[in-house]
């Protein structure tokens, strides 16, 4: 079996005296679509920020593509792509310029080549016609796809997507799921996706890690379809069966 591309060991995050999660350990295999899931406020995005090197963990360590994200992150930056929850497109640039940004800043490609590559990436996510539009002129779904195109700009080995389906209608959301599966098939990239959209999880995930706010850590890990059928954890069962929990308990 190939070496894992991400290794998280005993990751803990505290803000002041408040513990978000503790002792979270996991690995992600090459080519895998790994989903971090859980209810609102359980620390999914916080864990993602730790993994991509934006938030130093209170304890534990994370290595991505063999590099420690807090000592050697520079070595990894050009090999990963990140799509943030809001899209985080630079508002003063067109979609084409946004996708060109990492190409023109981090590679020696001449400007026309950067533009051509950026147009290919936009076409990959179905936005070939929207290259000249500004982020303020496009819908939420288009912004997310443009953000994926920018994340894909340098052909990264690893793509991190934070809540790609959040705030989207079911059809657009399903389209994004299809796009993720297609990109994995075409490019062979590894995906780490943070979401709590059940349909998306079941559609795309090879494996998932479930965080829980009350447990302050991981309560389940594995194939989501198997977890849905076999888990005995009340929270896991409730999540996959869309059942309400007794919040007073």
């Amino acid at each position: 079996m190939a070496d894992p591309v991400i290794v998280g060991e005993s990751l803990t995050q505290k803000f002041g005296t408040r513990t978000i999660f503790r002792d979270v350990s996991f690995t992600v295999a090459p080519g895998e679509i790994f989903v971090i899931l859980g209810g609102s406020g359980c620390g999914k995005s916080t864990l993602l920020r730790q993994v991509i090197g934006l938030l130093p963990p209170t304890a534990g360590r994370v290595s991505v593509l063999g590099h420690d994200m807090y000592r050697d992150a520079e070595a990894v930056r050009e090999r990963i792509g990140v799509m943030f929850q809001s899209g985080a497109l630079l508002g003063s640039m067109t979609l084409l310029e946004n996708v060109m940004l990492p190409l023109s800043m981090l590679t020696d490609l001449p400007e026309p080549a950067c533009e051509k590559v950026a147009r290919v990436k936009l076409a990959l996510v179905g936005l070939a016609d929207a290259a000249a539009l500004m982020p303020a002129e496009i819908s939420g779904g288009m912004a997310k796809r443009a953000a994926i195109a920018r994340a894909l700009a340098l052909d990264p080995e690893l793509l991190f997507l934070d809540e790609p389906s959040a705030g989207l209608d079911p059809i657009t959301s399903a389209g994004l799921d299809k796009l993720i599966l297609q990109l994995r098939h075409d490019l062979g990239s590894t995906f780490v996706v943070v979401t709590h959209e059940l349909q998306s999880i079941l559609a795309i995930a090879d494996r998932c890690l479930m965080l829980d706010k009350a447990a302050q850590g991981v309560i389940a890990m594995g194939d989501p379809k198997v977890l849905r059928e076999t888990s005995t954890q009340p929270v896991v069962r409730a999540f996959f069966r869309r059942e309400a929990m007794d919040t007073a308990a």
Partner: protein
Amino acid sequence: MALAAKQALTVERSGAETVLRFAGPLDVAATAQLWSRALREAAKLRGQKLTLDLAGVPLCDTAGATLLLEIERLQGAPVTMTGATEKVAAVLAQTKAATAQPTRAAPPPAQSWRSVLSDAIGVAAGGVAFLGEVVVAWVRLPSRLRLFRLSDLLRQADQAGVQAVPLVVLLGTLIGLILAFQSLIPMRQFGADIYVASLVAIGLVRELGPLLAAVVLAGRSGSAFAAEIGTMKVNQELDALDVMGLDPVTMLVLPRLLAGLVVAPMLTVVMNFSGLIGMSLVLVGDGIPLVAIGNQVAYWVVPKDVWTGLGKAALFGAVVAAIGCRAGLNTGVGPRAVGLSATAAVVGGIVAAIVLDGGFAVLFYQLGI
């Protein structure tokens, strides 16, 4: 909103036991009427055997249930509740369960002089760290030239400089005019009207020109830098730059810093000329010939005054821009944070310019400049 329902509370004592008998719906309106009296009665009966008779209560909402539970809390011991209908009992049980949930949020720690001092040290350390980051970005700029966008520098210089010219002309003219008017009255008593020209000119060129240009820069551009970068932070655009390996300080801070450094002396020149024009209008109106005013200014204002003024302006411009950018980079979470950053940029920029100007005044005096 619920209508004020008719609700009665009677207190019956029989031996060691007291019964609080409620009659009528116990909704939010009725609870509002009963709250003080019911709690007063409960406080009097603390520790005694107490029964709440709810047989006459056809409905009860969360407010009513909260009142009953508050009575129980004040009593200090479980009270007997009798006669509650199924619906009333259900609301009571639900409210009790919700009240019993532990609240995780700890109360905010009280502000002590130690925490204030620690915050102040933190802010100062943050300032030093930012200064260090800027210096490192400058040093590493030759190897990261492609991150430095010339178009961004020109855009910032246009917004901070060219677009500020009308405001600077207006302010400069008015300041010159006011200074001349105010100086003319006492100077005329000594027959020294002509010296108003030299007084105002030296004051403008050495002190007021650079200082007012810095104030305009802080108000217009420092706040704009903070708001623009702050919004980028709120929208995760800075995170996106970070994970792409693009240094936000080189990409966003350096062009603004350079723009501030370059446009502040230029705005100072415009401010100085406008002030001299305003002053001339007053003095010409007072009957002093324009040639005499010109000669007076040329005689008293020496090149050293101009260069020190412009040098100070350049430093003020860079500091105001840096404070604006830092406020933007330090923006917190949520829509209020951007407003707070813009305010911090304006206040910080103006205070820093005045403090620096005070320092320069002392320094130049000591050096005899």
